[in-house]
């Protein structure tokens, strides 16, 4: 079975580039040039240099003793929270800004949910002296205030998306419309493994550094390259794609993708795409999508802005379809509890997105010898308000 993209931009039956003609020249340009560009030695040298000296890679792979004791197995945490700006998102924005420069683009646009991708984009734009505009759902701007302020300090313009549920899906719509209106001088840095081909593959390749490092670090620490489990949360799926990438063809490694169950899969307030969705087309790719019988996209819900998306990247749709990965979901409450619990057992406050991955550990049955890697995609600083509010509600 092949889990990477084919020449037409498909993962099995998912993917493609369902874009209006207005975006055709931009997408075609990317399709034709992305592999050549990112494989150039000068690109790789600059990319690696920035990952090392600017982002702070490799990020540690940390053996979490107390958490391991709780679950009676060996749990390692891949510390993407220690990346500059606090999440894995910057691996991708570094890569894409270098692509944008080589394509001669002058301006950058992005969408953001939790604001981590927006901050990571604003950061690389500041670094490279490029103009930056970030679309963010109005609702998300309210629940991720610190990140809105960070983007502004970094010099980006933050534009509220006021349509629909005013979350990530709507911000993505607005960013795509902006790109249609400004096709020649602007590059759109998509923040996850979603969108038309080649975005899902390009973003996965930039995030693949996560699993490349995990293999090396496991080898160095326990003299085996392959874990038994890799666990990651899935909004669009970029941190999961990066954590899974170099294990896709290793059938002994169980890949676990964790979706946001919201108030519960059957509650009508959920973002558990594989549990609730079926094949459809959104934002330029054929994937699994939460939608009504008539094909209207359903407004998702999650306490975490970064997972509040009605689709998943086509690579994940394929991993689900072929059962290469198992998909589970956890509720808001389970995620919040897991976030508090990780804070107390390991001294790490995770992003609420990431807390979903930890909550899923309760649903898995481990053997004593199992080696489990959890991708700690981001830190929880941006979520303090949500943590505090949640705690106060529990009292």
């Amino acid at each position: 079975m092949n889990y990477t993209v084919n020449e037409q931009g498909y993962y099995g039956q998912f993917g493609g580039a369902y874009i209006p003609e207005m975006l055709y020249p931009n997408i075609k340009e990317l399709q034709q040039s992305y592999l050549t560009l990112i494989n150039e030695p000068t690109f790789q040298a600059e990319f690696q240099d920035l990952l090392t000296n600017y982002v702070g890679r490799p990020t540690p792979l940390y053996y979490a003793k107390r958490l391991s004791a709780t679950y009676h197995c060996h749990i390692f945490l891949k510390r993407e929270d220690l990346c500059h700006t606090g999440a894995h998102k910057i691996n991708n924005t570094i890569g894409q800004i270098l692509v944008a420069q080589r394509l001669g683009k002058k301006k950058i646009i992005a969408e953001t949910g939790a604001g981590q991708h927006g901050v990571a984009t604003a950061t690389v734009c500041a670094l490279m002296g490029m103009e930056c505009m970030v679309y963010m759902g109005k609702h998300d701007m309210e629940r991720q205030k610190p990140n809105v302020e960070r983007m502004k300090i970094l010099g980006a313009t933050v534009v509220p998306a006021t349509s629909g549920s005013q979350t990530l899906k709507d911000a993505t719509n607005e960013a795509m419309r902006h790109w249609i209106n400004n096709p020649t001088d602007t590059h759109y840095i998509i923040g996850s493994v979603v969108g038309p081909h080649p975005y899902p593959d390009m973003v996965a390749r930039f995030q693949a550094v996560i699993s490349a490092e995990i293999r090396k670090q496991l080898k160095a620490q326990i003299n085996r390259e392959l874990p038994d489990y890799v666990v990651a949360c899935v909004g669009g799926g970029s941190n999961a794609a990066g954590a899974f990438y170099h294990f896709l063809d290793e059938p002994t490694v169980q890949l676990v993708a964790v979706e946001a169950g919201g108030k519960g899969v059957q509650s009508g307030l959920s973002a558990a795409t594989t549990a609730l969705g079926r094949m459809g087309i959104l934002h330029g790719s054929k994937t699994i999508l939460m939608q009504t019988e008539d094909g209207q996209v359903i407004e998702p819900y999650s306490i975490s802005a970064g997972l509040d998306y009605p689709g998943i990247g086509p690579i994940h749709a394929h991993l689900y379809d072929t059962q290469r990965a198992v998909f589970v979901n956890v509720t808001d409450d389970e995620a919040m509890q897991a976030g508090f619990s990780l804070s107390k057992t390991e001294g790490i406050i995770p992003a609420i997105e990431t807390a979903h991955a930890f909550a899923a550990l309760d649903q898995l049955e481990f053997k004593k010898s199992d080696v489990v890697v959890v991708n700690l995609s981001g830190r929880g600083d941006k979520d303090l308000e949500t943590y505090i509010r949640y705690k106060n509600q529990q009292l």
Partner: protein
Amino acid sequence: MIYQPNPIRQLFIEQPQNILSVYFTAGYPSLQDTVSTIETLQAAGVNLIEIGIPFSDPIADGETIQQSSQQALQNGMNLTLLFEQLANIRQTVHIPLILMGYMNPILQFGVEKFCKKCFETGINGLIIPDLPMAEYLQTYKSLFAQYQLENIFLITPQTEDERIRLIDTNTQGFIYMVSSASVTGAKQGISNSQLTYFQRIKAMNLQNPLLIGFGIGNASTFQTACHYANGAIIGSAFIKAVGAKEGKLEEKIKNFITSIKAL
């Protein structure tokens, strides 16, 4: 099925100039307005009608059509209902009819079932902005042809000549010439760079007729478009006109079309 010359092609043979095509969102302003809108447009002298299938996430559309789509969905519009409303449309309407909408609702309805319904209803063509040409050629071309549906492609100021030629080869109704790098929406006026683009396309002498759309919204822009192409398509400006609070729907439609044809 008996093959008949497609009415869209027939139209351009009979009237090669000043074609006025109007886009509206089915189920807007009210759910039951679809049929009367079409009939009134025909009576007002419109040559071609694009019936918009509302979608929750129309990425190629500006605010006006986003809002009309949202309203239509809230009103309860969907494809099943649309085909019910249009079931007898050919008893009163003889001008060519096109359905325009995004791919996902069509995919969920079932593409073959959709095409069959279109054929039975008397729909003559389709505009599906997010169905790329490669996908159409590979997967849907023969199906559309079987049900005598012309697939209309878009070109934009960024479309390269070679691709325009390819689109010209694979289109049989007309080519939808997007007037600027833009989502839909009524802007003011036509710029010099747009005129240069219109001139460039006109000089290509394509085999298909051309209709200019996006940003055409009054008599003057309509006239300009007609000077460079076989006619023009009006969408957002029409939606705004029928969305106005005051007045009866039929009156609003008649007045709007009269204002477009004023020059």
